[in-house]
Protein backbone atom coordinates (compact mmCIF):
# COMPACT_ATOMS: atom_id res chain seq x y z
CA UNK A 1 0.00 0.00 0.00
CA UNK A 2 2.96 2.31 0.47
CA UNK A 3 3.00 2.84 -3.32
CA UNK A 4 -0.34 4.72 -3.18
CA UNK A 5 0.82 8.30 -3.20
CA UNK A 6 -2.26 10.48 -2.90
CA UNK A 7 -0.10 13.62 -2.72
CA UNK A 8 1.09 13.07 -6.27
CA UNK A 9 -0.82 16.05 -7.77
CA UNK A 10 1.27 18.42 -5.77
CA UNK A 11 4.25 17.19 -7.68
CA UNK A 12 4.14 15.95 -11.28
CA UNK A 13 0.60 16.91 -12.20
CA UNK A 14 0.72 20.38 -10.67
CA UNK A 15 4.07 20.95 -12.35
CA UNK A 16 2.71 19.87 -15.73
CA UNK A 17 -0.37 22.05 -15.30
CA UNK A 18 1.68 25.01 -14.19
CA UNK A 19 3.84 24.71 -17.30
CA UNK A 20 0.98 24.41 -19.74
CA UNK A 21 -0.91 27.16 -17.90
CA UNK A 22 1.91 29.60 -18.61
CA UNK A 23 1.91 28.63 -22.27
CA UNK A 24 -1.87 29.00 -22.57
CA UNK A 25 -1.64 32.37 -20.83
CA UNK A 26 0.86 33.38 -23.47
CA UNK A 27 -1.42 32.00 -26.21
CA UNK A 28 -4.31 34.07 -24.85
CA UNK A 29 -2.31 37.15 -25.70
CA UNK A 30 -1.85 36.08 -29.32
CA UNK A 31 -4.02 38.19 -31.54
CA UNK A 32 -4.30 35.79 -34.47
CA UNK A 33 -3.55 32.10 -34.86
CA UNK A 34 -1.03 30.42 -32.61
CA UNK A 35 2.58 30.43 -33.79
CA UNK A 36 3.52 26.83 -34.68
CA UNK A 37 6.21 26.55 -31.99
CA UNK A 38 3.79 27.73 -29.30
CA UNK A 39 1.13 25.34 -30.52
CA UNK A 40 3.62 22.45 -30.39
CA UNK A 41 4.68 23.41 -26.87
CA UNK A 42 1.07 23.59 -25.68
CA UNK A 43 0.36 20.24 -27.32
CA UNK A 44 3.28 18.61 -25.49
CA UNK A 45 2.32 20.30 -22.23
CA UNK A 46 -1.27 19.14 -22.47
CA UNK A 47 -0.16 15.64 -23.39
CA UNK A 48 1.99 15.52 -20.27
CA UNK A 49 -0.83 16.94 -18.14
CA UNK A 50 -3.30 14.36 -19.45
CA UNK A 51 -0.78 11.60 -18.78
CA UNK A 52 -0.14 12.75 -15.20
CA UNK A 53 -3.88 13.19 -14.57
CA UNK A 54 -4.48 9.65 -15.73
CA UNK A 55 -1.74 8.28 -13.45
CA UNK A 56 -3.11 10.13 -10.46
CA UNK A 57 -6.66 9.04 -11.23
CA UNK A 58 -5.49 5.41 -11.22
CA UNK A 59 -3.75 6.02 -7.92
CA UNK A 60 -6.90 7.46 -6.37
CA UNK A 61 -8.82 4.41 -7.57
CA UNK A 62 -6.18 2.17 -6.00
CA UNK A 63 -6.76 4.09 -2.79
CA UNK A 64 -10.53 3.53 -3.02
CA UNK A 65 -9.84 -0.17 -3.44
CA UNK A 66 -7.39 -0.32 -0.54
CA UNK A 67 -8.30 -2.02 2.74
CA UNK A 68 -10.42 0.02 5.16
CA UNK A 69 -7.59 0.38 7.68
CA UNK A 70 -5.50 2.14 5.05
CA UNK A 71 -8.28 4.67 4.41
CA UNK A 72 -7.53 6.78 7.45
CA UNK A 73 -9.09 10.16 8.14
CA UNK A 74 -5.77 11.79 7.37
CA UNK A 75 -5.43 10.15 3.96
CA UNK A 76 -9.06 10.77 3.01
CA UNK A 77 -8.69 14.40 4.00
CA UNK A 78 -5.46 14.77 2.02
CA UNK A 79 -7.00 13.18 -1.08
CA UNK A 80 -10.13 15.38 -0.97
CA UNK A 81 -8.09 18.53 -0.41
CA UNK A 82 -5.61 17.62 -3.15
CA UNK A 83 -8.43 17.12 -5.66
CA UNK A 84 -9.84 20.46 -4.57
CA UNK A 85 -6.55 22.20 -5.39
CA UNK A 86 -6.32 20.37 -8.67
CA UNK A 87 -9.87 21.31 -9.69
CA UNK A 88 -9.09 24.97 -9.06
CA UNK A 89 -6.03 24.67 -11.30
CA UNK A 90 -8.14 23.01 -13.99
CA UNK A 91 -10.74 25.78 -13.77
CA UNK A 92 -7.98 28.38 -14.14
CA UNK A 93 -6.64 26.60 -17.21
CA UNK A 94 -10.10 26.39 -18.80
CA UNK A 95 -10.66 30.09 -18.13
CA UNK A 96 -7.38 30.95 -19.83
CA UNK A 97 -8.21 28.64 -22.70
CA UNK A 98 -11.41 30.54 -23.40
CA UNK A 99 -9.29 33.63 -23.99
CA UNK A 100 -7.05 31.82 -26.48
CA UNK A 101 -7.36 32.57 -30.24
CA UNK A 102 -10.83 32.14 -31.70
CA UNK A 103 -9.97 29.08 -33.75
CA UNK A 104 -7.51 26.85 -31.90
CA UNK A 105 -6.22 23.84 -33.83
CA UNK A 106 -8.39 20.73 -33.70
CA UNK A 107 -5.79 18.62 -31.93
CA UNK A 108 -5.65 21.10 -29.04
CA UNK A 109 -9.44 21.26 -28.85
CA UNK A 110 -9.50 17.47 -28.55
CA UNK A 111 -6.90 17.53 -25.76
CA UNK A 112 -8.91 20.12 -23.83
CA UNK A 113 -11.98 17.91 -24.17
CA UNK A 114 -10.03 14.98 -22.74
CA UNK A 115 -8.90 17.17 -19.87
CA UNK A 116 -12.47 18.31 -19.28
CA UNK A 117 -13.60 14.67 -19.04
CA UNK A 118 -10.77 13.99 -16.59
CA UNK A 119 -11.93 16.96 -14.50
CA UNK A 120 -15.40 15.48 -14.37
CA UNK A 121 -14.00 12.16 -13.20
CA UNK A 122 -11.99 13.90 -10.46
CA UNK A 123 -15.20 15.58 -9.26
CA UNK A 124 -16.84 12.17 -9.15
CA UNK A 125 -13.92 10.70 -7.20
CA UNK A 126 -13.96 13.61 -4.79
CA UNK A 127 -17.67 13.09 -4.16
CA UNK A 128 -17.07 9.39 -3.42
CA UNK A 129 -14.22 10.21 -1.04
CA UNK A 130 -16.35 12.84 0.70
CA UNK A 131 -19.21 10.39 1.20
CA UNK A 132 -16.71 7.93 2.66
CA UNK A 133 -15.46 10.58 5.06
CA UNK A 134 -18.97 11.53 6.19
CA UNK A 135 -19.97 9.85 9.45
CA UNK A 136 -23.63 10.65 8.79
CA UNK A 137 -23.59 9.03 5.36
CA UNK A 138 -21.74 5.97 6.65
CA UNK A 139 -24.43 5.58 9.31
CA UNK A 140 -27.09 5.73 6.60
CA UNK A 141 -25.30 3.04 4.59
CA UNK A 142 -24.97 0.83 7.67
CA UNK A 143 -28.69 1.25 8.35
CA UNK A 144 -29.62 0.41 4.75
CA UNK A 145 -27.40 -2.68 4.90
CA UNK A 146 -28.99 -3.84 8.14
CA UNK A 147 -32.45 -3.39 6.65
CA UNK A 148 -31.46 -5.24 3.49
CA UNK A 149 -30.02 -8.14 5.50
CA UNK A 150 -33.25 -8.83 7.38
Amino acid at each position, binding site marked *: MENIDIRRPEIELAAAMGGVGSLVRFAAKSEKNLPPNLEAAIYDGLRQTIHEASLWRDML*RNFLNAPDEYQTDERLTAA*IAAIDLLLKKFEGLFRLWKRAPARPPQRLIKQMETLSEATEDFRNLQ*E*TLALGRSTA*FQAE*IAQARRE*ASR
Partner: protein
Amino acid sequence: MPDPPSDITISYGPTYNRNLKRLNLREATQQKLDKAWNEILTAVRENPDIPDPYFAGDPIPRNNREVYKLRVADPDHSRGAQKGLRLIYWWRRTERELVGLYLYPKSEKEDVTQREIDSARSAFVSANPVTKRP
Protein backbone atom coordinates in the same frame (compact mmCIF):
# COMPACT_ATOMS: atom_id res chain seq x y z
CA MET B 1 -35.76 -4.73 -13.86
CA PRO B 2 -33.01 -6.62 -15.70
CA ASP B 3 -32.67 -10.38 -15.62
CA PRO B 4 -29.50 -11.25 -13.73
CA PRO B 5 -27.17 -13.92 -15.08
CA SER B 6 -27.93 -17.17 -13.27
CA ASP B 7 -24.80 -17.03 -11.13
CA ILE B 8 -25.45 -13.57 -9.66
CA THR B 9 -28.63 -12.46 -7.96
CA ILE B 10 -29.95 -8.93 -7.58
CA SER B 11 -32.13 -7.82 -4.72
CA TYR B 12 -33.35 -4.44 -3.56
CA GLY B 13 -33.31 -3.36 0.06
CA PRO B 14 -36.26 -1.58 1.70
CA THR B 15 -34.51 1.81 1.58
CA TYR B 16 -33.84 1.42 -2.14
CA ASN B 17 -37.45 0.43 -2.79
CA ARG B 18 -38.69 3.42 -0.79
CA ASN B 19 -36.38 5.72 -2.76
CA LEU B 20 -37.55 4.26 -6.05
CA LYS B 21 -41.20 4.72 -5.13
CA ARG B 22 -40.64 8.29 -3.98
CA LEU B 23 -38.69 9.24 -7.10
CA ASN B 24 -41.47 7.90 -9.32
CA LEU B 25 -39.16 7.66 -12.35
CA ARG B 26 -40.52 8.04 -15.84
CA GLU B 27 -39.66 5.67 -18.63
CA ALA B 28 -36.52 7.34 -19.93
CA THR B 29 -34.79 7.47 -16.54
CA GLN B 30 -36.02 3.99 -15.60
CA GLN B 31 -34.40 2.71 -18.79
CA LYS B 32 -31.12 4.37 -17.82
CA LEU B 33 -31.35 2.74 -14.41
CA ASP B 34 -32.04 -0.70 -15.89
CA LYS B 35 -29.11 -0.24 -18.24
CA ALA B 36 -26.90 0.73 -15.29
CA TRP B 37 -27.85 -2.43 -13.39
CA ASN B 38 -27.12 -4.56 -16.46
CA GLU B 39 -23.72 -2.93 -16.84
CA ILE B 40 -22.95 -3.48 -13.15
CA LEU B 41 -23.83 -7.14 -13.58
CA THR B 42 -21.52 -7.49 -16.54
CA ALA B 43 -18.72 -5.64 -14.77
CA VAL B 44 -18.85 -7.70 -11.55
CA ARG B 45 -19.11 -10.87 -13.56
CA GLU B 46 -16.03 -10.01 -15.59
CA ASN B 47 -13.98 -8.89 -12.62
CA PRO B 48 -15.60 -9.59 -9.25
CA ASP B 49 -12.65 -8.26 -7.29
CA ILE B 50 -12.18 -4.90 -8.98
CA PRO B 51 -15.04 -4.32 -11.43
CA ASP B 52 -14.52 -1.75 -14.17
CA PRO B 53 -15.28 1.63 -12.52
CA TYR B 54 -16.69 2.99 -15.76
CA PHE B 55 -19.59 0.55 -15.51
CA ALA B 56 -19.67 -0.42 -11.85
CA GLY B 57 -18.78 2.89 -10.21
CA ASP B 58 -16.30 3.25 -7.35
CA PRO B 59 -16.24 1.73 -3.87
CA ILE B 60 -17.17 4.16 -1.10
CA PRO B 61 -14.25 4.19 1.39
CA ARG B 62 -14.45 2.28 4.65
CA ASN B 63 -16.98 -0.28 3.50
CA ASN B 64 -14.62 -3.16 2.90
CA ARG B 65 -14.88 -2.53 -0.88
CA GLU B 66 -18.44 -3.81 -0.77
CA VAL B 67 -20.50 -0.63 -1.21
CA TYR B 68 -20.30 1.15 -4.54
CA LYS B 69 -21.54 4.44 -5.91
CA LEU B 70 -22.53 4.80 -9.55
CA ARG B 71 -23.78 7.91 -11.32
CA VAL B 72 -26.85 7.47 -13.50
CA ALA B 73 -28.21 10.03 -15.95
CA ASP B 74 -31.69 11.39 -15.25
CA PRO B 75 -33.26 12.35 -18.59
CA ASP B 76 -36.61 13.05 -16.84
CA HIS B 77 -35.00 16.17 -15.46
CA SER B 78 -32.57 16.73 -18.36
CA ARG B 79 -29.64 15.82 -16.17
CA GLY B 80 -26.59 13.91 -17.33
CA ALA B 81 -24.71 11.50 -15.07
CA GLN B 82 -22.84 14.39 -13.43
CA LYS B 83 -25.97 15.93 -11.89
CA GLY B 84 -28.25 12.94 -12.13
CA LEU B 85 -29.01 10.04 -9.79
CA ARG B 86 -26.68 8.26 -7.42
CA LEU B 87 -27.10 4.52 -7.15
CA ILE B 88 -25.56 2.98 -4.04
CA TYR B 89 -25.34 -0.79 -3.99
CA TRP B 90 -23.80 -3.56 -1.97
CA TRP B 91 -21.67 -6.12 -3.79
CA ARG B 92 -21.70 -9.26 -1.65
CA ARG B 93 -18.86 -11.11 -3.36
CA THR B 94 -19.02 -14.33 -1.39
CA GLU B 95 -22.78 -14.62 -1.79
CA ARG B 96 -22.54 -13.36 -5.39
CA GLU B 97 -25.38 -11.01 -4.74
CA LEU B 98 -25.95 -7.38 -5.67
CA VAL B 99 -28.19 -5.43 -3.32
CA GLY B 100 -29.63 -2.01 -4.15
CA LEU B 101 -29.22 0.12 -1.02
CA TYR B 102 -29.92 3.70 -2.02
CA LEU B 103 -31.08 5.80 -4.94
CA TYR B 104 -31.12 9.57 -4.72
CA PRO B 105 -30.70 12.66 -6.89
CA LYS B 106 -27.24 14.18 -6.49
CA SER B 107 -28.75 17.43 -5.20
CA GLU B 108 -30.10 15.59 -2.13
CA LYS B 109 -26.67 14.87 -0.70
CA GLU B 110 -24.86 17.87 -2.10
CA ASP B 111 -24.71 19.55 1.31
CA VAL B 112 -23.14 16.40 2.81
CA THR B 113 -20.40 16.22 0.20
CA GLN B 114 -19.75 19.97 0.20
CA ARG B 115 -19.49 20.01 4.00
CA GLU B 116 -16.91 17.20 3.87
CA ILE B 117 -14.94 18.90 1.11
CA ASP B 118 -14.89 22.21 3.03
CA SER B 119 -13.90 20.48 6.23
CA ALA B 120 -11.18 18.43 4.49
CA ARG B 121 -9.79 21.59 2.92
CA SER B 122 -9.65 23.40 6.28
CA ALA B 123 -8.12 20.39 8.04
CA PHE B 124 -5.53 19.98 5.32
CA VAL B 125 -4.57 23.65 5.34
CA SER B 126 -4.26 23.63 9.16
CA ALA B 127 -2.06 20.54 9.04
CA ASN B 128 0.08 21.90 6.19
CA PRO B 129 0.47 25.63 6.79
CA VAL B 130 1.95 27.60 3.92
CA THR B 131 5.39 28.89 4.83
CA LYS B 132 5.81 32.46 3.70
CA ARG B 133 8.99 33.30 1.89
CA PRO B 134 11.21 35.78 3.72
